[in-house]
Structures are given as C-alpha cells and as structure tokens.
C-alpha cells in the first residue's frame, strides 16, 4: 500500500494508468462542458485579446468574456496541475537551457505547432484525440498528418539536434 502511494505521488506512472486517467477525465469534461476538451481555441482568444491590446488586430475579445470561458480554466488547470504534481513529487527545479540550438528549435517548433493547430481547427487534443473519439473524419486525417509530420521532424532532429 505504501509503495502504491509512493508511486502515485512520486511516479513514474505506468503508461496504461495515465491513459485511463486521461480517458476518464476527458469523458468528465465532455459530460460537464457538453463540448469536447480542447486547448488551442482558448489560447487563440487570449492571443486575439493581446493582439488587440498591442494594436495589431481590429477584432476585440473583452477580458470579462475570457475570464468566464471554461477553456481558460481548463488550460490553467493543465499548467497548475503539472506544477502541483512536480512540487508534490519534489521534482520541481529550474532547468536552464544547455544549448542555444534547443532554444531556437523550441521557438520555431512552438510557432509551427500554434499556427498548425489553428489552421487545422484544433491541436492533438481537440483535433486528434477528441476528433477520433467522436468518430470524426478530421481526427483520422489529423492522425495521418501527425505520422507524416513526425517522420519529417525525426529527419530534421537527426540532422540538426543530435
């Protein structure tokens, strides 16, 4: 019992346990929210808000609307939950960038991920996971693109980052 508790707090969780917890919570989100779990639509709304503030976009989303959006709290939950889990396992620490090229790859990768997720109307959560879960063709097309993208990404990684 003590060992189970230690693994639960400290990890590592077996992959199948993580998958089942994620699946259960995903169903819960769908039941409560009446809409599947997604990440990037809300991030886009916040980006529009910031862009308007900086005078880069004419479209305006009021902050009150963003603070009332479920997506804001789902995303905050992901970040704060991860922080809490790392703190509980006493594995939280500053992890400085060891090589400059990793910083560049992270920035370029982040831009592609964000832009790609929005032109695909969803990321791997809203588009892929919940796309397939709701028998949408989008999810399968997304999966195909993920395999292709990963293959190209692996080539780039081997050439520049190893």
């Amino acid at each position, binding site marked *: 019992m003590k060992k189970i508790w230690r693994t639960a707090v400290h990890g590592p969780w077996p992959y199948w346990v993580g998958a089942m917890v994620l699946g259960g919570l995903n169903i819960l989100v769908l039941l409560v929210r009446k809409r599947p779990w997604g990440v990037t639509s809300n991030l886009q709304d916040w980006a529009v808000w910031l862009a308007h503030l900086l005078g880069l976009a004419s479209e305006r989303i009021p902050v009150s609307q963003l603070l009332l959006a479920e997506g804001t709290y789902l995303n905050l939950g992901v970040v704060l939950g991860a922080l809490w889990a790392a703190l509980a396992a006493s*594995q939280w620490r500053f992890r400085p960038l*060891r090589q400059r090229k990793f910083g560049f790859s992270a920035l370029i990768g982040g831009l592609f991920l964000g832009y790609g997720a929005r032109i695909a109307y969803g990321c791997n959560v809203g588009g892929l996971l919940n796309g397939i879960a709701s028998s949408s063709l989008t999810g399968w097309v997304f999966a195909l693109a993920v395999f292709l993208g990963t293959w190209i990404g692996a080539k780039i*990684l081997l050439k520049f980052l190893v």
Partner: protein
Amino acid sequence: MEYYLDIWGEMCPIPIIKSQRKLKVMAIGDSLVLETEHSCTARGLVVWAQKEGYPISESEVAAGIWRLTIAKTHD
C-alpha cells in the same frame, strides 16, 4: 570499463540516439552512466533499455535528478 555520456538538458529521443551510438563503440561488459534532470528522459531511457534487453538501474540521486547505469551485455 565505465563510460559517461553527457545528456544534461536534452529531451528524448536525443539521449536514446546518443546512447545507441555510444553502446555500439563499447565492449561487452562495459557500462554506461547517464545523468539527467528530466523525468521523461529517465523514463524513456529505462523503457528503451528494457526493450533492448540491457539491464538498467535507475536512482533519483537528488530531487528531480536521475542517475542511470546501463550494462552492455550483448551487441
């Protein structure tokens, strides 16, 4: 002989590819020591070594820092 590979701050699959290359030039009976501050890198290496049939020991030497030792038992 004992070898050490620097994988600080690196994310999978880079440490796995580096380990594969290092193991190739090592002799049977040698061991490879790795240290990482990323839990997913430690996990990825353990899962990979077990799949390849290399004995691996893992210990969290400080909060959020893992030390792994892989024994090269076969080619």
